Each structure stands twice: as structure tokens, then as C-alpha cells.
């Protein structure tokens, strides 16, 4: 048994993160055995509270006049022998690690009676700092995905694991004899020390065995760039905590770079307006080739074609005294001058970041500029490569396959048949491989072409470890026994290496760290790392490289930017390379800028659209060389001229019931030469198709002042952004309430529009997935939405984000119009929504000026995209058909905290209640708390001179308010 460790004031006093092994009775498949009652969840008996509720929800008129009818006869299923730490009805928290774009990210997983139901960032993990992003959040739903591969498939037929292990046992002597000739391993780049070590051993064992690695979203350009500058590949990461000026060269620092959550926190630190004083801000310049939230948050943004970024970089380098051949840049030189001087003004306090989609040259230039500006070691850090990679890439593998050198191909946790570049023709070459083995979460496209498909265990089911972007290692521990008898890559490799039936994942990981830590105090450290969710002091040592002299001259000559249309491929913000395609939450979650849901589209700028005579919804044929693809058009303000941007990850054929056939498969236009972008794209209009589905159909504020924005300069000049709001007169006396008064303040200066709050809310509050048809009918269910407005010219717009939860108005328009009193005010100022009283007249929603109320038009439990009931929060009612719902300020968290405090006979502490959106927010833009507690952060924020409420003229007295958005543009650049 491993000792628990008190949490470090992370606002969860009741819970201790634990080592999984404390649960001496691990949850059996479907966890029936240890399913105490009350907590419910369809994992337990047929008729528990939740399903009883579902019945009600399903609007079955039940006997009796009190809308509750006969209560279903429930079963109470106690433990046979309860583990000590488990208190029935109370959740446990475990620290573990999830994969975030190839690197580890620490999370805290909430386990209700053996079921992981909710994820939060691990405050102690460098890559998370307690924050989340939607891709991470979605993985808890992925765990319960019924479409996950559930059994070993031999030639498509269900087979037992033994049949596979036996096969390997038979083959192994051959490998032994031939030193593994003909054995090839294909993996993504490996962030797990254990797996890396195992593969290394495997290669020691079979000298001729080959290890190839392929990442659809590969960052090799960065390494290549470093190679050019330093003569060796180095990983680069940043520390913006002390940065004053940041320039991004097509790098989506705050959404896609490893460590984006940390970067976002650091940026926010430099941009948060504390008090009325207008101190200087961390200034953000962005040169980018598509619309990203990084660009949306920039003080100055330049949208150029991807191929033109290098020219800008060269221009900048030249201005900073580097001897490089300047290219012809589309970025105005005055702009570059201003940026250069601004950078020069902050030596060592500035950073230039290059995006993974840019060629090595740009990365090299960025390194040189950073060196020039003395940023190395302060804002820009270098480590030896964190992730282990195979000797060869996918092309090498294909070559080998073509040469018939691959007899056995083992594909771990990858899906090349779907995501390999089209020109490699991977699919066809597979035929030449004698034995094809695939380990994956889904029986996907690749599984279909493999002789053996092996189900992989989900991260929340497995033992393992992973390194974060800065090398910090953390352990992966299972919260639940594998639902579908899956196995981990480490376990599989140990099978290949001859570990008999293969060692247990836990032993492999322990063995690995035993080696690392040394036997001495191992157990203590092991427990400590499990409890903390990080292996202390495991960050990779920093290196202080020096560029080779005259590295600049060695740069390849600037590529002459060809004319015509340019195609640009980017990972989808949520589906990433397609691995999350079967995740209902992520499919439905609106993309940060386009607000597109359930599908991708060819994004083109308004200018391009005009010149091509296209409008959103048109169907176009995109032709690149001999490859063609027809996709719907979406006119996206801010896209650079003559560029068509497509998101990867869609058009899956074997993703599962949710993801199949959603969107178009951009990989079909991808080649090894044009990995990220290609020139010479031909575009032809094919007519009007079904319009892409978007959750926000109107882009501007029509002169209404929802988002109030100002600049540091204006504040200094004493300009008044937020006129003092005098209380709106009312014929009624104002109600004075005792006890807490919950309120929320959202800081628009630091909100980066990353959508983490929306995803976390959906996870916490059992918000259903309504499916494409209903989203298209404007019936999306998210309780908090992030409105996105554009200002200025459509081609270079200013982007404004505004998260909108329920305003919890003190004089709520929704309440007085409800004929049955289903929505009334609670003592502590919450606008209660009583589902079981609601008859669905929808007048409340009609009368809500903020339109934050959501209605269950269908029984989304049955129809559309039934979510996995196992993931439901047992403390939040599952709403049935015909019932109104909305944000509750995470009522369940408030009440649980109050009950806990009441039990301990104390008053609530500041920050003891945190809403799901608040916890998830990477930039801590959301503050929540008791307005009556004068010292509370939220109470102070309400006094902030930039504090304002939406539509004050309506006199609704919202409890949710905003801090006006403040930016700090460079006066040298005319905005």
C-alpha cells in the first residue's frame, strides 16, 4: 500500500491523489463488483438513480401527480471487502499522465467508485500547471468509447491473446537466428523512457531489426534547423515568464506547441491588468500563414502565405545585423523595422519562435536571432532531444518494404494507412510485408490492412511513463482495469523481446525507474512520484549551445515564392491528426476561430473568396498535381491571400460510429515534398454543397459593446473604456441577502479563446452531444460558449473572444416568465434551474437576452450520439427530453464544498469552490467566488475600473462580469 500525500492547497481539500495500487480490488471489467450504490452510473445495477432519472427524462409519464411517481427499486451493491481509503459516495483523485501531441502532460483524474469521470490539470506538472486543453479533456470520454477495439483480431476474426503470443514465440527463434532481419517496428516518436529503453534493448537483441518512426504532425523541421545552426539536433522550448517581446513566426505557441498550456500561463502573467495601473505588457507579434488563437491574441499580426514567412524572418535577421540574404517579403518593412527595434530594446527579454510547419531555414534563423538577442538561457532554452525516434522515417520504411526487406511489420499506436503522405502509397506497399501487426485503440484503417490487430489499453487503463516538453518525466497509472482487455506498447514490445506472455506493464515501468533511481530509496521515490504526478528533478538538463560561426551564410538560398494558390495543411485543433475523430465532444466542440463543428472546410480569406467568386458553403475541387479532393469552402476572415487552409484528421473511414465520414480527408493532398504546404494548387467551383456547420453565424458586434477593448496607451491617457455603471433604477427595493453571493469575473485581456473551459464544462456537467443535424439547427448544448467577434477589415481583422456562461442575473428575466417556477433564485444568488419542475414552455430562453439557456429538443440520451453513460458525473442530474438547462456555476461543486465545510463546522475558505471552467483555464482568466467575502479575488476584481457587465441597460444585474480587453500595440506601428 502506498502512502497518500496531502494535496498542496489546490482547492481540493477533501481529496488526496493516490497511487492506484491502494485499490486492492481493482475495478473488474465494467466494474460491477465495487460499485457502491448511490453513485449510480449504468455500470451498476439496471435501475439505479441515474437510469431512473433517464426514464423520467425519457418523459415516460409516471404514476402519481407529483412528477416523481413510483421510485424504481434500486439495488445496493456493497464491496465484499472494502479498501480502506474508499469512502462510498466520495470521489478519489489520482495523478497520472496523458499524451499531449507526443509529449506527456500531467493530469489529475477524478474517480467515482472506480470510474474515471473527470480530468483536471496537475498543478505540479510543468506542462499543465493545473490547466487543460480540449484534446486532453476528451480523452476521458475516449476511454469509454464503445467503438474502441475490444479484442484481438487475426485476419479480421476474433482471436485470444494467447494465439498471438504463441505465434511470436514460434517466430522468435527465426529472429534470434537472423538477428531480427526483416523485423521492422513503426511507432510515433516515443516520449516514454520505458518504451524507448525497451526498443533499444530490442534492437540490441536483434541487431538487424529496424525501428522507424512517423508523426503525421512532425516537428522534424525544428531539429533540422537546430542541426544547421548548432551541428546537432536540439529541442527548443521557451520561458516567457520574463519575456517582454515575443515574435511568433507561424508558431501556434498557445495551442499547438508542446508546452502550450505553460506558455499561455506565462503570457497571461505578462498581460494581466492588475489594478487600474497600466504597466507595460508582454507584447506579442505574430507572422502567420493561417488563423490561430496565437495570432488572434497578438498585438500585431501579419497574415502572409506560409512560403513568405521565411522572407520575413530573413528581413528581420538582416535588420538585427545578421548577414543573411534578405528575401522579398510581403510584410511591410516598416512593420519589420518596428519589430526589430522593439526586439533590440529588450535583449534577453524577448523570444522569436518558429512554427513546426515552417522549413528548417526559418527555425535556423529564429535560433540565430534569439542568439543575437541574447535570449539563449533566459527566454529560449535548449535540451537534447526529448523524444526517442527510430533510425528511419516513413519514407525509409516504404523504401525497405518496396525492396522486400520487411518480413514482419509491427505498428504500435499509429495509423499510417490513413495518415501517411499520399505519394508514398503506403497502403499498396503493405502487401509486400509478410506479417503485419497493429496495436491501436481502434480497429482503424491500418488494423483493417493488418494480419493481426491487437487492442491497445487506454492511457487511463495502463501503466507507463512519459516525458514532457522539457523532459520532466511523470508516471502513467491506471484508474480502472482495462475495459477491453487491451495491452500497452511496452507490454507488446516485451512480448517481442521474448518476455514470455509479456511482463505486466507495472513491472516494466518499475524496472525502468528502479534502474534510473537506483535501488536505494526507490520505493519511497516511486510512491512520491505516483502521488505527485511528476518524477522530481527529472527535467532534462539545459544545454547552452553556440551557433557555428557564419551559420547564417550556410542557410539555403531563399526559395523564390511561386505565384498562384497555395495549399496549407494543419492539424485540426481538436481531432489533431485524426486520432480523436471518434470523440463526440471534440467533434462537436466549435473550432476556436471558425466556430466550425462536425467537419472541416477549405478555409480561404475574404479577399481570396472575392477574387475566386466563392462563398461559404460552395463545394470546390482542390487539385494538386494528380491528386484531387472536393471540399466545402468556409470564408475565414484573417486568412492570408491566395491560401487555402485545410485541417487534417477528417474523412476517417474506420474511426467509429461518430467519426466515420465526417469532413474531408486532407491527407489525400499530402505528399512528402509538400508536408505542410504546397504551391500550384488548382481550385474549381463544383457548385453549392451543404454548408459547413458553425455555431456562430454572425461575426460582428453591429456596434454593440459586448466586448470592450482598450490599449495601455489609452488607459495612460486617461481615456474611459468603461463608463461608471450607475445602478439601473427599479421600482422594487433591492434584495439584501445574507450568506455567500456567488459571482464571476472573466478577464478578456487574458482569455485566449482556447475553448478549454467549454470542454471542461461539458465533462463536468454531463452536457450531451447533439450531433451535426441539431448543431446545424442552432441547438448546440454547451453551457458556456466562447463568442468570437471580428473588428476592422475582414482580411486583417481584430479578433475578440468572450466566454459567455449564464450571467446569474440578480433580476433575472428568465425567472418571472416561468409559469411553474422551474427557474427561481437561490439564497446565494444562483439562478436555479429545477429540471424536474420544468414543463418546457421555453419562455425563459426567449426572455434571456444573453441566450445562454439550452433546451433538450430531443432525448439526447437515446437519439443522435448517445454519450458513454459511464463518464457521467453522478452529482449532476442527467437532463431528459423537453427540459431547459443552463450553466449553474457548477452548483454541485458549491454544495459539496458547503457540505464539507458544514461537516467540519467552518466557513468556506477563499478559492475552495472552483468551477470547472475556472480550473481548466490555462490563463486563469476566470475568477469565481463569494462577493460578500470582501477579501476574495472576485470581490476585488469587481472593483476593477475595467469591470463591466453585458447589456447593463436591461437592468438584469448580472453576477458574471468582464474585465475589458487591454492590448499594448507598438506605437511605431499604425494600427
Amino acid at each position, binding site marked *: 500500500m502506498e502512502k497518500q500525500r496531502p494535496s498542496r492547497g489546490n482547492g481540493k481539500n477533501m481529496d488526496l491523489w493516490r497511487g492506484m495500487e491502494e485499490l486492492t480490488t481493482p475495478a473488474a471489467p465494467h466494474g460491477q463488483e465495487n460499485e457502491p450504490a448511490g453513485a449510480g452510473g449504468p455500470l451498476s445495477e439496471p435501475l439505479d438513480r441515474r437510469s431512473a432519472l433517464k426514464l423520467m427524462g425519457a418523459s415516460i409519464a409516471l404514476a402519481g401527480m407529483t412528477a416523481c411517481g413510483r421510485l424504481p427499486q434500486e439495488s445496493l451493491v456493497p464491496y465484499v471487502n472494502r479498501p480502506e481509503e474508499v469512502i462510498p459516495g466520495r470521489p478519489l483523485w489520482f495523478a497520472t499522465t496523458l499524451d499531449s501531441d507526443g509529449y506527456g502532460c500531467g493530469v489529475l483524474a477524478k474517480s467515482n467508485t472506480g470510474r474515471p469521470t473527470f480530468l483536471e490539470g496537475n498543478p505540479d506538472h510543468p506542462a499543465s500547471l493545473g490547466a487543460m486543453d480540449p484534446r486532453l479533456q476528451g480523452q476521458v470520454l475516449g476511454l469509454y468509447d464503445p467503438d474502441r477495439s475490444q479484442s484481438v483480431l487475426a485476419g479480421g476474426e476474433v482471436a485470444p491473446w494467447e494465439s498471438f503470443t504463441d505465434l511470436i514465440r514460434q517466430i522468435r527463434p527465426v529472429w534470434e537466428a537472423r538477428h531480427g532481419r526483416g523485423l521492422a517496428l513503426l511507432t510515433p516518436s516515443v516520449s516514454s523512457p520505458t518504451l524507448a529503453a525497451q526498443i533499444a534493448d530490442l534492437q540490441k537483441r536483434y541487431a538487424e531489426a529496424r525501428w522507424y518512426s512517423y508523426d503525421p504532425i512532425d516537428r522534424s523541421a525544428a531539429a533540422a534547423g537546430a542541426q544547421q545552426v548548432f551541428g546537432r539536433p536540439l529541442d527548443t522550448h521557451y520561458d516567457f515568464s520574463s519575456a517582454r517581446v515575443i515574435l511568433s513566426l507561424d508558431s501556434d505557441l498557445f495551442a499547438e506547441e508542446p508546452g502550450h498550456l505553460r506558455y499561455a500561463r506565462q503570457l497571461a502573467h505578462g498581460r494581466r491588468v492588475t489594478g487600474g495601473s497600466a504597466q507595460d505588457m508582454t507584447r506579442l507579434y505574430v507572422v502567420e500563414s493561417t488563423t490561430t488563437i496565437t495570432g488572434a491574441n497578438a498585438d500585431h499580426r501579419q497574415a502572409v502565405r506560409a512560403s513568405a514567412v521565411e522572407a520575413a524572418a530573413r528581413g528581420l535577421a538582416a535588420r538585427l545585423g545578421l548577414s543573411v540574404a534578405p528575401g522579398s517579403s510581403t510584410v511591410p518593412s516598416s512593420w519589420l523595422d518596428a519589430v526589430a527595434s522593439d526586439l533590440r530594446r529588450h535583449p534577453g527579454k524577448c523570444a522569436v519562435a518558429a512554427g513546426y510547419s515552417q522549413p528548417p531555414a526559418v527555425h535556423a534563423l529564429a535560433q540565430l536571432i534569439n542568439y543575437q538577442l541574447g535570449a539563449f538561457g533566459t527566454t529560449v532554452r535548449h535540451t537534447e532531444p526529448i523524444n526517442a525516434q527510430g533510425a528511419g522515417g516513413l519514407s525509409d520504411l516504404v523504401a525497405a518494404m518496396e525492396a522486400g526487406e520487411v518480413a514482419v511489420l509491427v505498428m504500435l499506436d499509429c495509423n499510417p494507412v490513413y495518415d501517411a503522405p499520399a505519394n508514398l502509397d503506403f497502403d499498396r506497399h503493405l502487401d509486400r510485408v509478410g506479417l503485419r501487426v497493429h496495436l491501436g485503440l481502434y480497429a482503424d484503417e491500418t488494423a483493417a490492412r493488418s494480419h493481426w490487430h491487437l487492442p491497445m489499453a487506454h492511457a487511463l487503463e495502463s501503466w507507463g511513463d512519459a516525458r514532457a516538453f522539457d523532459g520532466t518525466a511523470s508516471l502513467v497509472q491506471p484508474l480502472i482495469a482495462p475495459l477491453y482487455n487491451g495491452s500497452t506498447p511496452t507490454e507488446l514490445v516485451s512480448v517481442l523481446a521474448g518476455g514470455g506472455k509479456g511482463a505486466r506493464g507495472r513491472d516494466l515501468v518499475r524496472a525502468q525507474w528502479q534502474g534510473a533511481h537506483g535501488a536505494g530509496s526507490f520505493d519511497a521515490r516511486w510512491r512520491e512520484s505516483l502521488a505527485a504526478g511528476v518524477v522530481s528533478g527529472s527535467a532534462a538538463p539545459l544545454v547552452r549551445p553556440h551557433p557555428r560561426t557564419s551559420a547564417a551564410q550556410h542557410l539555403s538560398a531563399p526559395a523564390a515564392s511561386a505565384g498562384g494558390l497555395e495549399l496549407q495543411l494543419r492539424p485540426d485543433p481538436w481531432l489533431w491528426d485524426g486520432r480523436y475523430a471518434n470523440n463526440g465532444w471534440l467533434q462537436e466542440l466549435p473550432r476556436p476561430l471558425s466556430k466550425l463543428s462536425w467537419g472541416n472546410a477549405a478555409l480561404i480569406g475574404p479577399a481570396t473568396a472575392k477574387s475566386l467568386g466563392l462563398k461559404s458553403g460552395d463545394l470546390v475541387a482542390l487539385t494538386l498535381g494528380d491528386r484531387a479532393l472536393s471540399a466545402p469552402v468556409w470564408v475565414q476572415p484573417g486568412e492570408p491571400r491566395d491560401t487555402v487552409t485545410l485541417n487534417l484528421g477528417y474523412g476517417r473511414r474506420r474511426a467509429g460510429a461518430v467519426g466515420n465520414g465526417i469532413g474531408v480527408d486532407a491527407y489525400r493532398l499530402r505528399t512528402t515534398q509538400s508536408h505542410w504546404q504546397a504551391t500550384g494548387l488548382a481550385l474549381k467551383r463544383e457548385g453549392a454543397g451543404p454548408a459547413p456547420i458553425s455555431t456562430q453565424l454572425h461575426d460582428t458586434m453591429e456596434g454593440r459593446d459586448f466586448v470592450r477593448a482598450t490599449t495601455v496607451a489609452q488607459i495612460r491617457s486617461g481615456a474611459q473604456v468603461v463608463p461608471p455603471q450607475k445602478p439601473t433604477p427599479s421600482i*422594487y427595493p433591492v434584495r439584501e441577502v445574507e450568506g455567500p453571493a456567488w459571482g464571476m469575473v472573466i478577464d478578456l485581456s487574458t482569455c485566449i479563446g482556447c475553448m478549454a473551459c467549454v470542454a471542461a464544462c461539458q465533462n463536468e456537467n454531463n452536457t450531451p452531444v447533439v450531433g451535426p443535424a441539431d448543431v446545424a439547427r442552432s441547438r448546440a448544448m454547451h453551457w458556456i460558449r466562447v463568442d468570437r467577434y471580428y473588428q476592422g477589415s475582414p482580411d486583417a481583422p481584430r479578433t475578440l473572444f468572450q466566454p459567455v456562461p449564464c450571467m446569474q442575473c440578480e*433580476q433575472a428575466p428568465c425567472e*418571472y416568465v416561468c409559469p411553474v417556477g422551474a427557474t427561481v*433564485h437561490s439564497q446565494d444568488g444562483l439562478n436555479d434551474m429545477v429540471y424536474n419542475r420544468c414543463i418546457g414552455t421555453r419562455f425563459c430562453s426567449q426572455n434571456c437576452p444573453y441566450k445562454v439557456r439550452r433546451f433538450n429538443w430531443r432525448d439526447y440520451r437515446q437519439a443522435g450520439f448517445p454519450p458513454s453513460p459511464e463518464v457521467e458525473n453522478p452529482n449532476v442530474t442527467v437532463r431528459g427530453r423537453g427540459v431547459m438547462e443552463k450553466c449553474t456555476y457548477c452548483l454541485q461543486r458549491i454544495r459539496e464544498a458547503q457540505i464539507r465545510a458544514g461537516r467540519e463546522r467552518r466557513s468556506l475558505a477563499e478559492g475552495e469552490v472552483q468551477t470547472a471552467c475556472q480550473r481548466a483555464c490555462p490563463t486563469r482568466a476566470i475568477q469565481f467566488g463569494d462577493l460578500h467575502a470582501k477579501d476574495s479575488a472576485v470581490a476585488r476584481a469587481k472593483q476593477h475600473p475595467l469591470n463591466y457587465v453585458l447589456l447593463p441597460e436591461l437592468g438584469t*444585474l448580472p453576477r458574471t462580469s468582464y474585465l475589458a480587453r487591454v492590448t499594448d500595440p507598438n506605437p511605431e506601428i499604425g494600427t
Partner: protein
Amino acid sequence: MADRLLVVAALPSADALARAFEAAWRAGHQRLEALSPYPVAGLPGEPLHRGFGRALLVAVLVAGAAFIVQYYAAVWAYPMNVSGKPVDAWAPLTPAAGVLGLMGAGIWALVAMLRDAGLPRLHHPVFDARRVDFGDDRCYVLAIEVKESELPQLRPWLEGLGAEEIQEVRP
């Protein structure tokens, strides 16, 4: 009262009916009834204003009751904070009370009519008379209840009033 008879006299016109009724009344017949296919001017009837006052009273009573129920429920039974308005804000309680009051008056009007018209009365001796036929546009009938003994002199008298046909029916 075997010796009592119902004499039914059919008259040619509404005016004739009115006149006959007048005369019979003068002649001291108390138990008599004039049947006509439409309200005939000149026949006795209750003044129209009677009942309006009562209808008003009913309306006020019902409305008051409705208001009290609402006030009880909203203020005493389970006071709720609705849109931050005072629980005892009374104005919103009036519309429902008002319409219900009018409804009450309407129901009272119906009941009062049935009572005063002595309806329903599906069986009535006059229906035995041949000329009592509401389907006929011109069924102007005077029915007088008399002793059998009075019959002989009544007949000629009625004929004198222009009765086209006279028929006796037993109650």
C-alpha cells in the same frame, strides 16, 4: 287535480297572442302561458336589468377568491425569490383573477337562465297539443289551466279572441 284541464288555443299572429294573453290575464286566469316561436313584444317578462347586478357580484366574488388563492400561494405557502421582485408584489396576481371572475359571471348567467326558464323540462303537458309545434314558424299558442267546469264558457270566449283551434289536454 283530475278536474283540471289545460286548454291550448292556437292564435293566428303574435299580436293576437299578446292580446289574448292580456285578456286572459284580465279575466283572472293566473295559470297561463304564451308560447311563441320568438320573443314577442307585449308579453310580460322580467325587466332586463334584473340579474346584471348579481352577475357583477358573482364576478367580484370569484375574482376575489382567485386573488386570495394566488396571494396565499405566492406570499405565504412558499415565497420564492423570482427575478428579485418582492414576494408580495400584488399587481401580477390581478389578470388571472380578473378573467376567472368574468368566467364565473358567465357560468352564473347560464345557471340563472336554466333556473328561471325552468329547464330542463323534457316532458310537459302542452306538448300533447297538436298545434304546439316549434317547428312551425307560426305557432302562437296560449295555454290556460282551468277547471273542467269552466270549459264551456271558455271556448267561445277564446274563439272570440280569434283562436283558430282549441284543444284540451290533461296535465
